[in-house]
C-alpha cells in the first residue's frame, strides 16, 4: 500500500499558489461574516475559517475538470477550486445571478464549470455521490478524480461505510477527505467516534488511510499528491484524515461554550494563515510585496463580487415552477 515517505515536496510557485487560495478563502470568509453580521446576508453561515490549508493544497493539485462534492461547511472548498466569486455572492444573497439562481443558497452552491458538482447539507451524503462522479471519470476513460469533502462527525454515519467499501471494490478515482476539526456541532470527537484516528478505518476497506496535519501545507501536499496520483493511476481511493480546527464554531453566532478557552486560544494562536505567510517570506518563496499585492487583488475581487451579488435582482416566484423537472411545471 501507498505510504507518504517518498511523496513529493511542493515547489515555491506551488506553495505561493496554495497561499493564494488560502488568502482568497480567508478574505472571502471575512467579508461574508461581516456582511452577515450587518444583516445584509440572511443565511445560516458555517464558516470554515481555520481550515483553509486542506482544500487549498488539494486544489493546487487538481485540474479544472476534476470534481468535488462538498458540504454546508464548504465555501472554502469551492473558493479553493477557483469558483468565481460573483455568482457565489449572488447565490448566498439569494439572487437570480447566483450560481443556482438563489434557489440553493450557501448549503447547496453548485458550479459544474469549476467542478463544484454537489453541495449537500446532509451529514455524510457527499461521499456516495462523489463515488458516482468518480465512476463517471472512469467510464469516460479520463484521468479525472473526484474529491469527497466531509467532517469528522460524518465519519460515523452509514453512508461513510457504504461509500468507502464501494469505492475500494470498484477502484474508483475518489479521495475521501475528512476535515477533522475535532467537533461535530457541539460534540467533541471522542464523544462520538470510537477510534482515535479516523484513518484507521481505511484498513476495513483495504484502502490506504493517512492522518495528516491539515494545517501544514507541506504535509497536506504529500498526502494529497499521493492520493491523487493513486486515483489518476487507477489504483483506487484513499482516505485522508486532515486535522484542523474551526475558528468560528459550528454556525455563526455559536458561542463556543463546549470547548475550553485554552484550547480555543491555542488553536487560534496556531492560525495556519499568518504562519504560512511568514514562512513563505522567510524561505524566500515570495516577497512581502508580492503577497500584499496578491491580497489587494483578492480584496478587490471580493469587493466587486459582493457588490455584484448584493445588487443582483431576486428571482421571481415563477422560479418555484422551474427546475423541478426539465420542463416547467404548469402554473
Amino acid at each position, binding site marked *: 500500500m501507498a505510504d507518504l515517505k517518498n511523496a513529493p515536496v511542493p515547489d515555491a510557485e506551488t506553495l505561493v499558489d496554495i497561499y493564494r487560495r488560502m488568502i482568497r478563502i480567508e478574505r472571502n470568509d471575512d467579508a461574508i461574516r461581516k456582511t452577515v453580521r450587518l444583516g445584509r446576508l440572511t443565511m445560516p453561515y458555517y464558516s470554515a475559517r481555520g481550515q483553509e490549508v486542506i482544500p487549498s493544497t488539494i486544489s493546487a493539485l487538481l485540474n479544472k475538470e476534476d470534481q468535488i462534492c462538498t458540504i454546508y461547511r464548504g465555501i472554502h472548498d469551492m473558493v479553493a477550486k477557483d469558483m468565481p466569486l460573483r455568482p457565489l455572492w449572488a447565490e448566498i444573497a439569494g439572487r437570480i445571478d447566483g450560481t443556482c439562481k*438563489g434557489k440553493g443558497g450557501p448549503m447547496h452552491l453548485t458550479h459544474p464549470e469549476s467542478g463544484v458538482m454537489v453541495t449537500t*447539507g446532509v451529514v455524510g451524503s457527499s461521499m456516495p455521490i462523489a463515488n458516482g462522479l468518480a465512476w463517471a471519470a472512469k467510464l469516460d476513460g479520463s484521468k479525472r478524480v473526484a474529491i469527497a469533502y466531509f467532517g469528522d462527525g460524518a465519519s460515523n*454515519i452509514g453512508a461513510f461505510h457504504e461509500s468507502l467499501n464501494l469505492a475500494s471494490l470498484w477502484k474508483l478515482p475518489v479521495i475521501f477527505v475528512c476535515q477533522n476539526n475535532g467537533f461535530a456541532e457541539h460534540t467533541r470527537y471522542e464523544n462520538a467516534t470510537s477510534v482515535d484516528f479516523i484513518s484507521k478505518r481505511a484498513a476495513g476497506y483495504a484502502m490506504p488511510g493517512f492522518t495528516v496535519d491539515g494545517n501544514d501545507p507541506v504535509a497536506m501536499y504529500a498526502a494529497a499528491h499521493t492520493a491523487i496520483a493513486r486515483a489518476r493511476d487507477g489504483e483506487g481511493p484513499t482516505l485522508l484524515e486532515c486535522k484542523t480546527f474551526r475558528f468560528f464554531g459550528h454556525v455563526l453566532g455559536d458561542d463556543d461554550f463546549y470547548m475550553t478557552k485554552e484550547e480555543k486560544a491555542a488553536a487560534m494562536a496556531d492560525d495556519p494563515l499568518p504562519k504560512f505567510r511568514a514562512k513563505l517570506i522567510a524561505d524566500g518563496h515570495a516577497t512581502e510585496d508580492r503577497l500584499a499585492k496578491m491580497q489587494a487583488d483578492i480584496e478587490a475581487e471580493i469587493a466587486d463580487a459582493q457588490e455584484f451579488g448584493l445588487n443582483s435582482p431576486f*428571482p421571481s416566484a415563477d422560479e418555484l415552477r422551474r427546475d*423541478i423537472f426539465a420542463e416547467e411545471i404548469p402554473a
Partner: protein
Amino acid sequence: MSEMVKMNGLQAINAAMFEAMEADPKVLVLGEDIADREGGGVTGTMRGLSTKFGDHRVCTTPISEQAIIGAAIGVAINGYKPVAEIMLMNFTTVAMDMIFNHAAKLRFMSGGQTSVPLTIRTLTGAGWQTAGQHADHLEGWFAHAAGIKVVCPSNPADYKGLLLSCIQDPDPCLFVETGGTLFVPGEVAVDQGPIPLGKARIVQEGTDVTIISYSTMMLRCQAALAGLAEAGISAELIDLRTISPWDKQAVLDSAAKTGRVVIVHEAVRNFGPGAEIAATINEELYGQLKGPVRRLGGPYSPVPFSKPLEDAFLVTPEQIVEAVKGLMG
C-alpha cells in the same frame, strides 16, 4: 382554572421532559448534542436533563440516525421509554428503515408480544432560509405508515401536553416541532398534564366555514381570522394537533355544521395530508357541503433558499382569507 404561566414551546418541551423523567425512571433521552456538555440540544430543549438525571439516561450520540433509532427501539422493547431526537425532519430519511420497517411494525409483526413506546422528536419548517434539505414537512409520509402516531403541536400548552402523552403512549409517536411555533410564547397551565392524542382542538367556533390546520400554519390561520371577521365571515378554526390518528369526528361535525372547508398545511399540497382529510370529508358528507373542500399547501417544489421564493412557498394569511371568500361565493 389553574394558574397560568407564560412560556414558549422550547420551555414547554423542556418542562415536559423534566416532569416525564422525574415521574418515570424508564424515560430516557438520546440524540445528537443533547447532553448539557453540548448545550442540551441545538434548540436547548433538553437543557438541564443530563445534569439532573445523569449521562446514562440522557445520551449524546454520534451522527448516526439509524443507530439512534435502533438503540431506542431495542431499549423500548425492554420496557424503557426513550425520547429520541432526529435533529431535523429531513434526516428522518436516513433512519427511515428503522422508523418505518421496525419501530412502527414490531408490535404487529410480533403479534403483540413486543411494543415500542418510543417518542421521536424532530424539527422542521421553512422560513429560516435553510433551503432544500432542512425544512420539509413529511408528516404525511408517517401518517401513511401504519403503527406510528404523528403529532404536530402549534402552541406551548400543546407542546407540553402532547409531548407528555407521546412519552406515555405505548406505541411509537413522531413529535414534530416547528421553527415557526417553538419560539412563540403562550399561556400554559402550571399543572398542564397530558393532552390526549388523536383529539383536535376547536380554536375558534364559527358557522360559515371550517378551517383545518396544524403546526406553523395554525398561526397563519389565526392571523387570517381578523380579516375574515372583518368580512363578516364566521370561521371555525380547528387545530388537528394529531395527524395520525386524526380526529375525524371533530372535523366531520364541524364541516357538517358549516358546510365549507379549507385545509391549510405547510407540507407540499400534492399527495399531502390535506388530501386525506378532504377526501374523507367529501366521502362522508357527500351532498351536505356548500362548496368544494379547498386545500392550501406548499407548491410542488423543494423548499427554496432565496427569501422572496421562500415567502412565496408558504401559504399566507391573505391566501387563506382569499380561499375562504372564494367559498362564500
